[in-house]
């Protein structure tokens, strides 16, 4: 997903005009690279596109057919009750109930029946002979007519079964449902409250640490770096509960709540720091030594070197880590479940979605639409930070 765009330079132009041809003429390895990129892109975008289409489909259609059939009409077996007997009319000695199986103008009935055992026993145009001399006919536009020699009795209408071809239906109903169901907006804000500090704090700490670990001579530096790399492999699940206990114990001596935003910020910071320091150190340690020495001779102290030279030059690394960390925290459910409560003021989006799914009994339309709602923010973050992921930031500095 992380694309690296190279700023246009004059050396690019000769290739642009020749395009594909020159691509093919390059080494087989390049071709292989391009092919694998295409495969990866397809593998990524296809399910995403499916999810998007599904989220826009009608929920009944979604339940019975896959998203790839969404453009062709679906054939569904449905049941309605006729109008109740109070509405019966007497026409030529027979009692008649008339109505329409559906309001949908585009609906096309193919077959019908009157018993659940044979829901499609009759084709449209046929007249179905029911018990006690009753008849039923349904026309292809959905109009039905029930007639009986005796008056219809009972409070409810009769059950009618029909098979209909329903044209594709798209709409934002699912989104409306997800967004208007209580609490989503609040959860959105809660998620941002967790994610933004949990992204910014580790970056700040890690950038300072990475600078110190690459450019400030100190005893035991190598050991410290090895320790941080070692922390990369500690599984989160293993440390979660001990961490929570520790936090609670320390927190209780300061009178801090067991479940609070501070706790989850600290937890995410802790879990994010090893990777952040590792990534940023790799980048910062590879900045040309002469630039830093030159700044030092120019009179800058370590802090000035860090803020004026290192930070601006490290944008690509900072941005890529910011994307990683933001995605990870935004999509996290586990840490949020452990460190945050379930109250309205603390429930994050992932927890909210899980709850909605639970109470709706696994309704697909909620899942698809809410997946897209929760993806929107990370996508926005990615595209706004993507322009910092540029190569050639250092060009012109050292030969």
């Amino acid at each position, binding site marked *: 997903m992380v694309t690296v765009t190279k700023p246009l330079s004059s050396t690019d132009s000769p290739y642009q005009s020749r395009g594909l041809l020159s691509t093919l003429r390059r080494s087989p390895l390049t071709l292989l690279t391009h092919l694998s990129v295409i495969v990866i892109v397809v593998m990524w975008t296809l399910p995403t596109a499916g999810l998007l289409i599904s989220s826009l489909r009608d929920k009944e259609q979604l339940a019975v057919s896959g998203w790839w059939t969404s453009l062709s009409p679906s054939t569904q077996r449905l049941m309605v009750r006729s109008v109740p007997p109070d509405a019966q009319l007497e026409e030529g000695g027979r009692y008649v109930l008339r109505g329409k199986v559906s309001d949908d103008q585009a609906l096309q009935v193919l077959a019908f029946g009157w018993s659940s055992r044979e829901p499609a026993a009759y084709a449209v145009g046929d007249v179905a002979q029911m018990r006690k001399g009753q008849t039923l006919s349904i026309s292809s536009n959905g109009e039905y007519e029930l007639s009986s020699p005796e008056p219809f009795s009972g409070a409810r209408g009769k059950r009618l079964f029909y098979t209909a071809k329903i044209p594709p239906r798209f709409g934002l109903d699912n989104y409306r449902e997800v967004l208007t169901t209580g609490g989503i907006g609040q959860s959105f804000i809660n998620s941002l409250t967790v994610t933004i500090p949990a992204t910014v704090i580790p970056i700040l700490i890690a950038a300072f640490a990475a600078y110190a670990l690459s450019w400030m001579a100190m005893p035991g530096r190598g050991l410290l770096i090895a320790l941080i790399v070692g922390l990369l492999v500690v599984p989160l699940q293993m440390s979660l509960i001990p961490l929570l206990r520790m936090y609670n114990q320390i927190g209780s001596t300061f009178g801090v709540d067991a479940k609070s935003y501070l706790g989850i910020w600290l937890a995410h910071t802790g879990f994010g720091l090893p990777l952040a320091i590792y990534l940023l150190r790799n980048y910062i340690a590879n900045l040309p030594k002469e630039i830093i020495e030159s*700044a030092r*001779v120019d009179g800058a102290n370590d802090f000035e070197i860090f803020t004026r030279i290192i930070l601006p030059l490290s944008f690509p690394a900072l941005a890529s880590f910011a994307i990683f960390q933001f995605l990870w925290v935004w999509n996290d459910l586990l840490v949020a479940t452990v460190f945050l409560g379930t109250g309205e003021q603390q429930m994050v989006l992932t927890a909210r979605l899980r709850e909605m799914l639970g109470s709706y009994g696994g309704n697909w339309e909620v899942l698809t639409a809410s997946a897209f709602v929760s993806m929107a923010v990370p996508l926005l973050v990615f595209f706004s930070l993507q322009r910092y992921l540029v190569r050639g930031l250092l060009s012109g500095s050292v030969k």
Partner: protein
Amino acid sequence: MTGVKLSNIRKSYARNEVLHGIDLEIELGEFVVFVGPSGCGKSTLLRMIAGLESISDGEMYIEGALVNHIPASMRGTAMVFQTYALYPHMTVYDNMAFAMRIAKESKEVIDEKVHQAAELLQLTEYLGRLPKALSGGQRQRVAIGRAIVRSPKVFLFDEPLSNLDAALRVQTRIEIANLKENMPGTTMIYVTHDQVEAMTLADRIVVLSAGKVEQFGSPLELYTNPANLFVARFIGSPAMNILPVVLEQSGPHSLIRFTSGKTLSVPVASELMEEGAELQLGIRSEDLLLSDKLNALLSGEVQFVESLGEMTLIHVKCKESDSIIVAKLVGIIELHKGQTVHLSLMADKVHLFNTEGHSLRYLDQQSCDAGQQAEQPDLVTDNV
């Protein structure tokens, strides 16, 4: 006052000593060039002066003040790196203003100094550009500009021209020479591989070899009176010819015998040497002359001829030497490969080196300079 004074400066990396006690006194405003073969410690010494490397032992003074423990940012030096080391995210203007902004100079002062420097280096029209939009020569000028705006006490250059092509190198060399004129009070130290740069720019040259100072003197001094075999071979192109000889008779004038048996009296004092001692004779290629067979001191077969128009270089394989002798003859000389030539040499230009490689002429002069002081230099007493 001295600009930079080094006294017994040593540098070790782990247990590996790379500078073995350097003593130098560089005058205020002097332009000093460090030369020496690759890996001899030139850059290390320069970086120690800048404060980028710690000093393992010894004392360093800049304008009289001990700076051993003063960090690079407070030493008041400016350095031009071989790789330019411009700040890639800043414009030319910001690159030059950086040091003054760090020093919290006022906006007007910064603006004035940057424009002054830009004018001097013909960079005015590029002030708004990023380094990546500049050519190599322009980048190098920005690097120099960045150093001069600070009016440093000591100006350090580490092979600043080695990334430039030949024409640009000449041009930038002239610019550096002009800079030296414009900043008479600033001590400048310049590291280079290039002899021409060293000879043309330097007030004095320091020849370094394997972490030691071989000789410190003006370019012509080094050329005409090298202290030892190393300097003799290192300075000058083509390198000085070296031949083994034997001392026949010592005295204010020495009589030497070539391996061919021919003898020559040279005006080099060798009073303290034993007769029969083995010596090395050094003679510059331009001090060799074509001669007839009878008067020749050296004869051999021509191996290679380089005709350069104003002069001709001939490479001769002589019986008297294991290595090839190169003679620089004025004008166009018709000679070809395989021909036998006879050469004589100018006796007053001959250098003699003892078995330790020290020049007898240089030692003699040193002891004269030392005057009537009781202490004789160690070098001389060693050889008695």
